[in-house]
């Protein structure tokens, strides 16, 4: 996947001993703005810090992990493939909000990574339990 995005290497290990619950909240469509791509860059760096990382996909953010993307026609790179590399960095806690998914006519099978589909209320509760929430 390194041809798609730079992934963190071993030289970026950070040893503070503190493990916090981080949540990256993806709210925006993969293209049309740079937010999705630059959130993913934050996520990848966080992997080098051995933190308890969670990814939430709400609103149009869930389109970031929809299968079969090909944005070459709009001169964008297909960084959706990078999400498949996250489990190699122990980032495996991915959540999609059920109400938003249903509003968009999506199902769990439409996503290119394994996600846990949870209700809006459950998402709120999960978010509430985080130490650091970074969203875009």
């Amino acid at each position, binding site marked *: 996947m390194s041809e798609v995005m730079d992934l963190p290497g071993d030289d*970026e290990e*950070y040893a*503070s001993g*503190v493990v*916090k619950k*981080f949540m990256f909240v993806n709210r925006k469509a993969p293209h049309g703005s*740079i*937010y999705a791509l*630059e959130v993913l*860059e*934050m996520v990848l*760096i*966080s992997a*080098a*810090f051995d*933190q308890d990382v969670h990814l939430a996909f709400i609103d149009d953010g869930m389109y970031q992990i929809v299968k079969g993307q090909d944005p070459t026609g709009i001169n964008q790179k297909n960084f959706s493939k990078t999400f498949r590399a996250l489990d190699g960095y122990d980032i495996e806690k991915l959540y999609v909000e059920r109400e938003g998914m249903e509003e968009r006519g999506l199902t769990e099978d439409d996503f290119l990574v394994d996600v846990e589909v949870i209700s809006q209320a459950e998402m709120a509760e999960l978010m509430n339990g985080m*130490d*650091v*929430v*970074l*969203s*875009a």
Partner: protein
Amino acid sequence: MKFGILVNEGPYNHQAVDSAYQFAKAAIAKGHTVSRVFFYYDGVHNANKLLEAPQDERQIGKLWAEMAKEHGVDLVVCVAAGLRRGLKEETLAEGFRISGLGQLIEVGIQADRMMTFGD
């Protein structure tokens, strides 16, 4: 309390960076610490030394630089986001430094609260 701040929008177009500044100022006045402000996305433009708003307007970059000097606030601009937008050492305003996203995660770990301003 120790705060970390993330600024996600550029100068003048949005209120975000002004709100971040006012928040930091108020927090410091109440005796809290703002250890680091991280500038990401278009937020990197706040650190451009070529910014020159009309004289009767607030000078955003200078306000931050003064705060950094007086209160030891570490102003960090994301290198990757900066390069995408033409911000590098040559165009970096005084008081700011360029570094990696690891600085954002690090302050998230070290601070008691992480505040985000902007979309």
